[in-house]
């Protein structure tokens, strides 16, 4: 018997046929593994201060050099991976949850609810992202959790609009009518029937969102409002390099490169997902 191919099979096939997508995905997997096994990979304690070895250029002991307190940059970057990876995933998790719930409600119920929600979204989108983010952070205790929540709270609008659009397109379709006829509740129709059909464009948007969240966190840490020191994050290592701009290129170069590569890989996966899931958009 011939195997029946589903839409998903075709999408997977198209996705994995894209070399860039496979490259991006592999790098992301490597980064996740680095984050998990950070203590095994590092040969030095990322927090250990060793003033005798301060500002050493990259060498065979300190692969990426040392900072102004003699801490090993390689170990600090490995631990920084944890920050970037978790912030990317968790903050976008929060944003997608909010976006999906709010967007579904607006799209499904329509009318005044929709009008109100769309107005709120419009207002939130008026705030320049960095301003809103920093203003929120100014009033909250500085910690990695604050950063996750705050990025999540400012990033849901795009997803909500996407989901709303999908719901409006789908809510009058026959399968929804059928579900309603047999007495399915609103909640059941939203989550069991419409949402699974509306979710694909959101996956693409989430992937790009993770890249954006990683950039946002590194930007915040760079400004000194992100992950509190001494905990290492790519952004705050880079920030410390600012003072030694003409002396220690390695302080700036490696963390920036890491952010760049990570963001690029998420964007590559996002692009490939878009091509694979919706070939019309090419």
């Amino acid at each position, binding site marked *: 018997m011939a195997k029946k191919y589903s839409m998903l099979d075709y999408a997977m096939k198209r996705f994995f046929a894209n070399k860039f997508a496979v490259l991006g995905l592999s790098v992301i997997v490597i980064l996740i593994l680095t984050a998990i096994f950070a203590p095994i990979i590092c040969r030095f304690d990322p927090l250990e201060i060793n003033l005798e070895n301060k500002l050493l250029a990259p060498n065979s002991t300190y692969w990426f050099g040392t900072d102004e307190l003699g801490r090993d940059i390689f170990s600090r970057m490995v631990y920084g991976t944890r920050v970037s990876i978790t912030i990317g995933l968790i903050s976008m998790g929060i944003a997608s949850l909010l976006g999906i719930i709010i967007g579904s409600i607006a799209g499904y119920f329509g009318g005044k609810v929709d009008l109100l929600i769309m*107005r*709120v979204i*419009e*207002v*939130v*989108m*008026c*705030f*320049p*992202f*960095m*301003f*809103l983010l*920093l*203003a*929120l*952070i*100014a*009033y*909250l205790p500085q910690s990695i959790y604050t950063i996750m929540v705050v990025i999540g709270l400012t990033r849901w609008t795009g997803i909500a609009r996407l989901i709303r659009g999908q719901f409006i397109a789908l809510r009058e379709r026959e399968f929804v009518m059928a579900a309603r006829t047999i007495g399915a509740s609103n909640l059941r129709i939203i989550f069991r029937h419409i949402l699974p059909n509306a979710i694909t464009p959101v996956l693409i948007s989430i992937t790009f969102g993770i*890249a954006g969240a990683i*950039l946002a966190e*590194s*930007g915040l840490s*760079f*400004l*000194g*409002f992100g992950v509190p020191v001494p905990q290492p994050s790519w952004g705050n290592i*880079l920030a410390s*390099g*600012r003072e030694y*701009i*003409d002396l220690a*290129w390695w302080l*700036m*170069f490696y*963390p*920036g490169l890491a*952010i*760049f590569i990570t*963001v*690029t890989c998420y*964007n590559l996966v996002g692009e490939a997902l878009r091509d694979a899931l919706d070939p019309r958009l090419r």
Partner: protein
Amino acid sequence: MLDYLLRRIMLMIPTLLGITLITFAIIHLAPGDPAELSTGGMMNAESSKKIVMQMRELYGLDKPILVQYIDWLKRLARFDFGDSFAPDGRPVAEKILSRLPNTIILNIASILLIYIIAVPIGIFSAVKHNSTTERIIGVFLFMFYSAPGFWVALMLLKYFGVHWGVLPLGGMESDIYDLMPTWTRFWDRVHHLILPTVCLSLGALAGLSRYMRGSMLENIRQDYVRTARAKGLSEFKVIFKHVLRNSLITIVTLFAGILPGLIGGSVIMESIFSWPGVGRLFFTALQMRDYPVIMASTVISATLVLVALLITDLLYSLVDPRIRLK
């Protein structure tokens, strides 16, 4: 047209109220008394007491929350944002107003640069669709899009500023600016503007080029282009007279989309290049927990975006009169 303009401005009012509401909510987001919190044990007892008093007075924290909001709104309507907590204690409105032109200059320069580069790249990529050159340009744009702006900024600063010394390290003018003749002054300003503008533009530049390409490609496939070609117009005329005009409509509307990013990005760029704009003011205010300045810059930056949205809509209705009828 006037009718449309009025209608659009009326529609702005609820959004503006929403902006103030969110900002107000942020002030009250902090657990406990925002007045107590604002001192955060950073200052000595006497000055922190003074700030607590100032905050109480400014936000009327002992009154019911609705009264507080309405009082705050009334003062906003008179552009009274209170006095800065910084040592100079100047009125916040005055502080922001003196910085605003600099931020606007930087943003206009970036927008000009973005459009001047993105439009030709978009046209080229669409006309030479699927060629090797187009692919290479595509890869570069993708890299620009993913690169963290502050990293690129520091790297450029390191080479152009520190090592080769061809561009200034920061600020808006040289120390001897006042002694320069007018023409040199202008060049001095331009000189200082180059690095911040380039760095601020990179991300949006890549995005806009891709949109321009997409918009051109979409229009090239349309029937009217086939007609234009069929009646024997030169390819140059087809592309630049017919396709380009229609593609630009989409691009004009994207102005509103890139502006929030630019204004937000100027917080980072202005603090890297010591550019004396609102973004840098906001950044220093954050470091000093200067709450009146933080709140005022947040409201003003969002209002700027709202005004930009209005301008975009007006531009859009100028280039595409069908919109006005809706």
